[in-house]
């Protein structure tokens, strides 16, 4: 028995025999010449390019079914294959009497070398794709098919150095129990694909290629990153049990995740997703989200030189609203400033960024920026069930000022004859203790509260949540936090309004029963936590 450790990239347990996927490079002598006439070699070249194109196109179509984004790379592969610059080079080499494989190899390697020298990693990484195409072409010329994952001889845990999109596009799925790779991290192609297909995977396992052999029995634990080779009976029995339990739980969660859930005492709880970009829409839907409880809009504003236009924002908001139809989508207005550098806003450097001009404070100082966002949200409002939420509210005057601005924007749109939804809910995040303490008063100005626990905890204990030395103070279940939460919920209920929660605490299995007891109405969390939370709610009084 031997144990190795890697990074768990896709959860689940696999027990089975190993299949080593170690495709060999074709031996090609790049200096070899022959006396075949150019026209003959050129004819073969054209034929193999056509055959390779068909192959890549099939990979493209096959991959597109599961992973649209992943498939795009094959479009580039086809262009590499037919690249006029490379073909011209091959022609020249063929005319100098190089053999066809030699000419292909020489011509491609020249471009590979150029790309490998590029500084930007994005461009550098394309050298790998170019090589992938070169290998395919050489295989076609030689007629030798090297090892492939399109037919795996037995149900197996696939062990490889790393996997490329070409390796996995024609994957024989029914025989794949799991993936183990020696290189790569959680953002590698293998990790992303495994997650999308729901196949357990561990990546970055050092020495796995030298330790593992074809047919060897192995255990893979995708949650912990453990790989056990040739396990003994006791270990095997333990993991069989663990696997059974994992699969039973997974099945149960699959059953409940798309349900609208209620507690045992009959209160329906909305379980929503927190998302940070439009790419997350599908992840949220597939996790069973009842709506979006927190749509962070910061992604639109970061990493750029000028603020996003109204149109760009409108399109992003519209996309999310359309995807969720009648289900609620709470758009949080810009929560930025302080520690995040946004050059185009010309923010002053602050001594205490977390206590400075951020979120609503920044928006009320940059009214133009805020108005553009509100206009974009209002215009998108007709496409779904929108709610607006202001972050970092400390006192009621901030709500009044923001609401006045919202009123102005509505008036302007009416005058311009632009359509928008007339009545939708407006709420605030309760994440500063002063807001919780004065919830009774603040609720008069809004339709709902959403408790942001990450900041609420940090501001209540005066403890920076990124500072490990004070992490003992970061305690969501401390009575001072629970009291603030309870005050907030009670205040909203007294006025027949509601309170949700969108901090990390909302998805915490230890916190959920307590929050339900206090009367929380909605919980919003990262999508992966939704199925479990729904199950827990159904089991709670």
């Amino acid at each position, binding site marked *: 028995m031997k144990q190795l450790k890697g990074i768990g990239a896709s959860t689940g347990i696999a027990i089975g025999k190993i299949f080593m996927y170690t495709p060999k490079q074709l031996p090609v002598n790049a200096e070899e010449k022959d006396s075949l006439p150019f026209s003959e070699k050129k004819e073969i070249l054209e034929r193999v390019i056509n055959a390779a194109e068909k192959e890549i196109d099939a990979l493209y179509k096959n991959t597109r079914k599961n992973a649209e984004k992943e498939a*795009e790379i094959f479009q580039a592969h086809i262009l*590499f294959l037919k690249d006029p*610059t*490379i073909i011209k080079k091959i022609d020249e080499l063929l005319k100098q009497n190089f053999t066809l494989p030699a000419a292909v190899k020489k011509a491609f390697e020249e471009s590979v070398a150029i790309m490998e020298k*590029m500084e930007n990693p994005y461009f550098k990484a394309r050298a790998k794709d170019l090589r992938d195409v070169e290998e395919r072409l050489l295989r076609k010329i030689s007629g030798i098919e090297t090892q492939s994952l399109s037919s795996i001889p037995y149900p197996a845990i696939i062990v490889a150095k790393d996997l490329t999109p070409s390796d996995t596009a024609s994957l024989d799925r029914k025989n794949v129990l799991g993936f183990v790779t020696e290189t790569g991290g959680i953002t590698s192609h293998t990790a992303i694909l495994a997650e999308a297909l729901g196949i357990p995977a561990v990546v970055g396992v050092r020495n796995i290629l030298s330790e593992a052999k074809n047919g060897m029995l192995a255990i893979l634990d995708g949650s912990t990153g453990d790989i056990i080779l040739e396990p003994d009976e006791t270990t095997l029995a333990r993991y069989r049990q663990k696997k059974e339990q994992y699969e039973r739980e997974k099945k149960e969660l699959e059953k409940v995740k798309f349900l609208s859930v209620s507690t045992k005492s009959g209160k329906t709880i909305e379980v929503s997703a927190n998302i940070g970009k439009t790419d997350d829409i599908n992840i949220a839907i597939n996790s069973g989200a009842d709506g979006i409880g927190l749509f962070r809009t910061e992604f639109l504003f970061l990493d750029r030189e000028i603020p996003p236009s109204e149109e*760009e924002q409108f399109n992003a908001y519209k996309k999310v609203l359309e995807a969720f139809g009648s289900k609620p989508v709470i758009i949080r207005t810009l929560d930025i400033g302080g520690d995040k550098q946004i050059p185009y806003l010309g923010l002053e450097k602050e001594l205490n960024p977390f206590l400075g001009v951020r979120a609503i404070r920044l928006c009320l100082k940059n009214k133009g920026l805020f108005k553009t966002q509100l206009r974009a949200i209002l215009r998108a409002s007709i496409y779904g069930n929108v709610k607006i939420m202001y972050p970092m509210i400390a006192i009621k005057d901030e709500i009044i000022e923001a609401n006045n601005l919202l009123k102005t924007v509505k008036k302007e749109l009416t005058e311009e004859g632009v359509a928008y939804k007339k009545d939708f809910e407006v709420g605030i995040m309760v994440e500063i203790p002063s807001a919780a303490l004065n919830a009774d008063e603040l609720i008069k100005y809004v339709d709902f509260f959403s408790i942001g626990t990450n900041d609420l905890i940090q501001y209540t204990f005066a403890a920076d949540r990124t500072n490990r030395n004070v992490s003992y103070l970061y305690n969501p279940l401390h009575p001072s936090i629970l009291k603030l939460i309870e005050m907030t919920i009670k205040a909203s209920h007294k006025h027949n309004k509601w309170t949700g929660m969108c901090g990390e605490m909302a998805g915490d299995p230890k916190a959920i029963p307590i929050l339900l007891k206090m009367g929380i109405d909605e919980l919003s969390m990262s999508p992966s936590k939704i199925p479990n939370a729904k199950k827990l709610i159904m089991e709670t009084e």
Partner: protein
Amino acid sequence: MITKRFVVKNKVGLHARPAAEFVQTVNKFRSEVKIKKGEKEANAKSIVEVLSLGVERNNEIEVIVSGEDEKQALEAIEHLINSNFGEKE
């Protein structure tokens, strides 16, 4: 022959997918198309050459089109660049 300067605004510059779209667009026309970045020049019908330019975000490029359908070709290129290669957000 017509030329026009552009600033590439999409997130990753002319890297894999945008470069592929550029080449695919240019391939629809008979005109010869060149891209210049500083001193370096590339045949826009070759993805390898386009990638080798290493055009990143906010780089300025010069597009040189010559041939019978040069006007339409430049229009198509302009549209592609201005739409940020269809990149969302």
